[in-house]
Structure formats: structure tokens, C-alpha cells
């Protein structure tokens, strides 16, 4: 499991286990300076040897589609310098479907939301929200607390809570730092955590 975690995260971390020969300079959000590839290549950059799959295959791991998704995360709303080059589809088709997926009135994205201390969670349709403000308002109606917005002064008290989310990599992050569309593409579940825990 550790190696799988490394596989999923090794592309963004500098250190990795010596058992794998992943190129650690692969980071889609890094500017030029690490890899000279124009996008994040899972295999190699100019300076490294080819990605060795044999270790991972021996361990019974396969490079799953979640690995692929981590390498090629959300597109148009990132601040990366280079547009995406994989999968090989034309930009026009790519952006047509991204817009479609996001403003599909019929579609929904229900995710679980828990508040710390309350064992029963709720479900919330993220596509029904317009953005962070709308999300906060909806949550305020669902749960009995005040949620501090990102950027507000941190109050270390058990009376206030902050909103966090689990992303595709399994990390818990503060809600509000990234553009809304990028958040939609990465969020798996929400948690309302006590402010003094952050």
C-alpha cells in the first residue's frame, strides 16, 4: 500500500522509495524548471531513465485510472503554463465536454458531508451550487454551526468550524483555495471540522 501511495503521490513529492524509479520531477503544476516536458509525462523527462513498471507489477499493482487522473488533473481552470496534451483529442472537443459536464442541468454530484461529532451525515448536490458562497449558504442551512470562510482569521475555539474536503489523492484540504471548477473535479467528500483542529 505504501508503494501505491507513493505511486499516486510520488509525482508531486521529491522523495520516493528506492524500490521504484519514478521520475520525481513530474508535477503538472510546476512551472518549467523541473521537467522540460510541456506537460506531465508519467514516463520520463529529459534527464531520467524510463519509468520501470516491473517493480509495481511484481507487487501486483497496476497503474489504475486514478493514477492517470492524478497525472492529468483538471484542465482549463489551472494556472499551469501548458495546456493538456493527453488524451489526444482536439481542444475543441475537450472543452465542449468539460463545459457540458459542468453546466449539465440534469446532472448531479451528490457527495457525503459530515460534521465532526455528529455520526450521521448528509448528502449534498454540488452541481446545484453556483460556487463557494452558495455552498456555504446551503451548508449553513443543513448544519448547526458557523463555518469560517478561508482567509478569515483563524479562531481557535470549539464553537467555530471550518469546511474541509477529501480530494482524489486522499488528502484533506481546506475548501476555498482553488477555483470552483477545479474543486468540483477533485472533491470526494466534505467534512466540517472544528476550527481549533486546523
Amino acid at each position, binding site marked *: 500500500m505504501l508503494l501505491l501511495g507513493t505511486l499516486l503521490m510520488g509525482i508531486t513529492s521529491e522523495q520516493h522509495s528506492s524500490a521504484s524509479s519514478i521520475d520525481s520531477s513530474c508535477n503538472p503544476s510546476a512551472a*518549467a524548471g523541473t521537467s*522540460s516536458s*510541456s506537460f506531465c509525462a508519467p514516463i*520520463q523527462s529529459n534527464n531520467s531513465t524510463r519509468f520501470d513498471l516491473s517493480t509495481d507489477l511484481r507487487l501486483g499493482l497496476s497503474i489504475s485510472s486514478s493514477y*492517470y487522473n492524478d497525472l492529468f488533473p*483538471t484542465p482549463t481552470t489551472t494556472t499551469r503554463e501548458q495546456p493538456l496534451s493527453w488524451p489526444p*483529442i482536439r481542444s*475543441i472537443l475537450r472543452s465542449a465536454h468539460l463545459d*457540458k459536464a459542468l453546466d449539465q442541468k440534469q446532472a448531479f454530484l451528490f457527495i457525503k458531508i459530515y460534521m465532526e461529532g455528529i455520526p450521521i451525515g448528509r448528502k449534498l448536490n454540488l452541481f446545484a451550487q453556483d460556487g463557494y458562497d452558495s455552498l456555504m449558504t446551503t451548508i449553513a442551512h443543513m448544519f448547526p454551526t458557523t463555518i469560517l470562510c478561508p482567509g478569515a482569521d483563524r479562531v481557535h475555539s470549539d464553537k467555530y468550524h471550518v469546511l474541509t474536503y477529501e480530494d482524489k489523492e486522499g488528502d484533506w484540504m481546506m475548501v476555498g483555495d482553488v477555483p470552483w471548477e477545479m474543486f468540483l473535479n477533485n472533491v470526494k467528500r466534505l467534512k466540517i471540522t472544528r476550527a481549533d483542529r486546523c
Partner: protein
Amino acid sequence: MMNYFPDEVLEHVFDFVTSHRDRNAVSLVCKLWYRVERYSRQRVFIGNCYAISPERLIARFPGVKSLTLKGKPHFADFNLVPQDWGGYVQPWIEALARSRIGLEELRLKRMVVSDESLDVLSRSFTNFKSLVLVSCEGFTTDGLAAIAANCRFLRELDLQENEIEEKKNHWLGCFPDSCTSLVSLNFACLKEINLAALERLVARNPNLKSLKLNRAVPLEALQRILMRAPQLVDLGTGSFVLDRDSDDSETYRKLRTTILKCRSIRNLSGFLEVAPHCLPAIYPICVNLTYLNLSYAAGIHGSELIKLIRLCGKLQRLWILDCIGDKGLEIVASTCKDLQELRVFPSDPFGAGHDAVTETGLVAISSGCPKLNSLLYFCQQMTNAALIAVAKNCPNFIRFRLCILDPTKPDPVTMQPLDEGFGAIVQSSKRLRRLSLSGLLTDRVFLYIGMYAEQLEMLSIAFAGESDKGMLYVLNGCKKLRKLEIRDSPFGDMALLRDVGKYETMRSLWMSSCDVTLGGCKTLAKKMPRLNVEIINENDQMEFAPEDSQKVEKMYLYRTLVGPRKDAPEFVWTLV
């Protein structure tokens, strides 16, 4: 004996020789045939605009009426070629205009077109009839206004997937009232349109056979347009949405009645926005369709899609999104027995892939549709067993392009590379001309390609191979190879330099994120003066005293008769 025939007779015989390749072959027979052929040639195809100059084109073919030009390399479609790389049509149009060539048709792909070019084009050729722009950029609707206003005999204006800046000028209204010769009009890639001008234009052009609308044309307008043009053969709908309230049921009813009269429609596309409950309006024409393109219709899925497909028994070409799923493909396989071409695009290129297709869908298609000869398939996974079955069921592939979304994924059942599967495809489809590979692949797949793919002309490689041997198998084995494009594969100088003469038999070679070095590219450029070896240097990685041992991020080389191009931007270095 042919020498005793007057030139007119030879010319008349050559009139029956229409393909570019055949005419090229005719011109090589002897000096007489070369001369007669060149004066009678009307259609010229130039696959790489930098391989020759407009002046030489005009000198050799003074009678040219139709010109096709291609600019940027294919991987430009996937954002691998930076802006301002090149591919300008301006010098071509200027030269043709100066020379009084009677140009009637211009077809451009991946070129940079300016408003000025379009303006000059529209004013310089009185018989200009047909403009087809595919994946071009650099112009605005002002340029389109010039074409509309000045080309008095325009028959075709076909804009496919271009990036066009839209101004507020209602260019469509610039077609004069006297314009009644239109046969084909496609503006699907635009965002806006002047509806009133469109309806008037359709009304006065009774020969219109092909019409592709954009998103800004609502259903009500489509109904009125179809009333005026029931003779259409080729229709691209715009927006296909009606709200469910009662006011619009009248519109829907009218649409159904109108569509019933459109008995000639054989090709259907568009649905850029679609409400599934409106789809039954098109059911009556499905039975006649031979081409259906739903690749932009993300709003149709599941049961509505299947209902639609079940009605299309005569389909020969189907372009669809992967939300059809394997089950949907099984329906296609049992319904569309005449299917020759299938393209399955990813509907959610960045998502977790809930709706997607796998090897199961492809095997079903191959069993049900033995006439399949052209495939583009984006999928989650593929197995060797499936590919071997597909190869057995469909031995007639001309184009086979497989894209596994996770680019180095092995066969998920056996965990093996997909060498054997692709090997089966190239061995069984003896007429294969185009191949794209993906998945985990070793050098072995290239051994098979070199051995069996005798007719292969274009090969696309990504994240594949283990060593230079892979690339060498291909270069040595594929005698008819014209275009080779490789990314993120471990091929280096040894493979690049083994047979430098090979590249003069090809149109072009693209290698990015491979192991070729600056030194290797320089050596090649020095040995082969009739190749342009261009390095694209985007990230200033080579700014400070580049060393020969440094790997080159992007290299594009092509044969040319006119030396290094003079319009290369500063980030493109042509090595000499």
C-alpha cells in the same frame, strides 16, 4: 505508339487519371508525359506547405484550379506545437493572386489564415467556388464577411473546428441577394450567428445540400430552415432543446412534421446542446442515415441513445461518445450491419471514467460488423485476447487507432504488454495504412509492425517501446511509411541516424520527449541537406550554451525542396 498521338489525346486519357498519386506516377514516365500532365493538372495536393514554394507550384502547374495545403504537424491538434510556429497561408494566396491563376477551390488544414488573406482571396479569383478550412486559426468573422461579399459564385464554405474570433459584424448578411449558388455551408464552430440572415440565405439557395448549424440556432429556427430546405442531404443541427412546457409542444409538433419531409438526409451531426425528450422528432429519418455524428452530444446517453441507434440500420459511419458503454456498442453491433467506420470519443477525459468502453464493446462490434475498416477507439482498457479476436473478425482495417486513456496500461487480465494484440491486427489487416498504438508496449510490437505492416503510411506512437531497436524495426520494415510521429518513447540518436536516407522517402518525422540529442539532430541535418531538421525550444532549456549531449524536447523534420523556411519564429531552430 503514344508518342504519335497529339497532346490533346494524351490529355484526354489523363483526364481519367484522377488520384494525385496516379497523376504523379504518370508525370514520371517520360518528358512528354510530364509536360502534358503538368499543363492539364487541375487539382494539386501539398501535404506539407514547407516542402515546396508557391512559385514552384505555379511554374509547374499553371492550370491549377484546386489547391489543398496542410501546415502544422498533426500533434499540433493536441497542444504539442506552440503558438506562432508557422503554417501561414498568406504567401500562397499572394503568389497565386499575382500570377493570375484561376483558382476555384482552396482547402487548408492546420494553417494560419488571416483576415487579409481571406480578403485577398475573395478579390483575386473571379471563379472562386469553394473554401474549406479545417483546424485553422488566425482569422475573424471579418474575413468571412469578405468571402461572403466578394465571391459571386461561391458554392462551398466549410469551416471545420477552426478557432475564429467573432466580431459583431453579421458576416452572414454580407452574402448579396444575388448569391444563389450555395451547395454547402458549415459554420458549426462559431458561437453566434445572425438568424434572420441565415433564414433568408437558405431560402434563396435552393441547391443547398449540406448545412451545418451552430449552437446559436434554436430548434424553432431549425424547423423554419428545414421547411425551406427539405432537399438537404447533410444536416448538422445546432441547439436541439425545447423546454418541457406546453408552449413549445406546438414547435415540437411542427418540427416533427417538417422532418418527415426531409427524406434526403443521409448524414446527421450536431446536437451541440440537446434535450433528450426532443429526439423522437428525428426518429423518422434515422432509417436512411449512413453517417451519424454524436460526438458533441454529451446530453444524450443511456436509453435515449440506444433507442436512436436501433433505428439506424443503414449506418456506415458512426461517431459517438464513450457514454454509450459496452452494452450500447453491442446494440450497435446488432443493428448496424453495414458499419465501416466507428469513432468512440472520451466523454469525460478527466474524470474517473464511470461511463466508458472497454475491450468488450470492441469485440462485440467486430463480431457484428465485419465490414469495419476504420476505427478510432478511446477506452479504459484493452486485452490481447480482444485484439486478437478483433483482428480475426475484421481483416479489412485501413485505419486502426486505439487510445487507452491510461497510456501505459497493460492487459489487465494477464498483465502483459499489448504487443501480441497489435501484432495480430497488423498481420491480419494487410491493407492497413494508418495505425495508432497505446497501452504497455515493448520493442516486440515494432518488430511485428516492421514485418507485417507493408502498406502502413502513418504511425503514431506514444509511451511505447524499450530501446532504439523498436524504432529501427519500423524504419527498416515499413517501406511505404510517410508520416511517423513519436512522443515519450525511449528512441535516441542510434535509431535516428541509422538510415538517414529513409527520411527523404517520407513526408515528416516528429519526435518529442524522446532520447534524441542536439548532437544527433545536428549530425542528421548535416548529412541530409534536403531535410529541414527543426528543434522547438520552448522553455529556454537550451538558451545557455546548449551542449550536443543535451536531449531535445521536440524535433520535427521534413523533406523539402526549398531549404530552411524563412518564417520560423525564434523558438524554432532549423539545424544545418
